[in-house]
């Protein structure tokens, strides 16, 4: 047995259970409107937090590439609505900024 197996299995368990429980429990309950509203807002708050965290925790030399890629992808998705094209363009802008700055 690999010496890392216990820690990998432990990590797997503590990652899986929080993903599973709300799905099993809330599926059966009738939620109050305020709770529904809270859960409805979670995608917007969590995505913007993940983006903010990505910017705030990136290395200083990667910052222009991170911000540029995010803005390019977001703007293109906003106007054109094509997700794959937007992500590819974001990566392209990041690559240019990393290479030339």
């Amino acid at each position, binding site marked *: 047995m690999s010496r890392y197996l216990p820690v990998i299995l432990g990590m797997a368990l503590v990652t899986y259970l929080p993903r599973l429980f709300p799905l099993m429990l809330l599926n059966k309950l009738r939620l109050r409107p305020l709770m529904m509203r809270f859960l409805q807002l979670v995608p917007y708050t969590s995505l913007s937090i993940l983006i903010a965290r990505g910017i705030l925790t990136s290395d200083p030399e990667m910052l222009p*590439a991170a911000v540029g890629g995010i803005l390019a992808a977001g703007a293109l998705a906003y106007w054109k609505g094509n997700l794959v094209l937007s992500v590819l363009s974001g990566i392209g802008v990041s690559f240019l900024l990393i290479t030339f700055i």
Partner: protein
Amino acid sequence: MSDDRKKSIRQGMVAGSPLILGYFPIAMAFGLLAKNTGLTIMDTSATSMLVYAGASQFMFLDLVRAGVSTGSIILATFLLNLRHMMMSASLSVNLKKDTSGFLPIIGFGITDETFSVLSFNKDKLSLAFILTVNLIAYLSWIGGTAVGYLVGEVIPKALQDSLGLGLYAMFAALLFPSFKVNKDYLKPALLGAMTYFAIFKTGLLSSGWDIIAGIVIASVLGVIVMGKEDKDE
């Protein structure tokens, strides 16, 4: 197979395809880093297959390098991934009926990325659609890990770095268009960014707690600001 199910699978492939771009390169970076940390390819693949959570897998390598104990690594992983509880709860209210016997499988596949794609397609959450999106993400993650372990060194650093930023590009590409559909959603998004900024600057919360506290605080503030009225459903 019914036409409905075929249509759901097709829609799932369209919605899930950006996940390949978001996941594969980052999984490659993980595979390469795991190799440099001294893990075998079996351990590296097992981590991606069983834990299946990007940020915490990188943290795992950091902590292994630092010689941190097994218990501490597991606790840190728990905290970092606890945010998926909020995401799982948010998804649960939009699942279609045919998902009911498959929640253990659906739950396993909830990550930041699949959650983002699924919750911005919440009118389509049938079993076939969800499993298609989740499988695309899962296979990209596992495939990328193996490829990164085996041949990761050949990719130039600048390209690796920009591909790694693809994840944030995808988050933005999912979030921004929703403001066009309903500009009210600018409010929770701005609240999220401002709340996280405040948490980050005070530095009181460790990694993991910062994200989950941010999601809870910003969503509560959102409910206070916006009320329970729900124009979009």
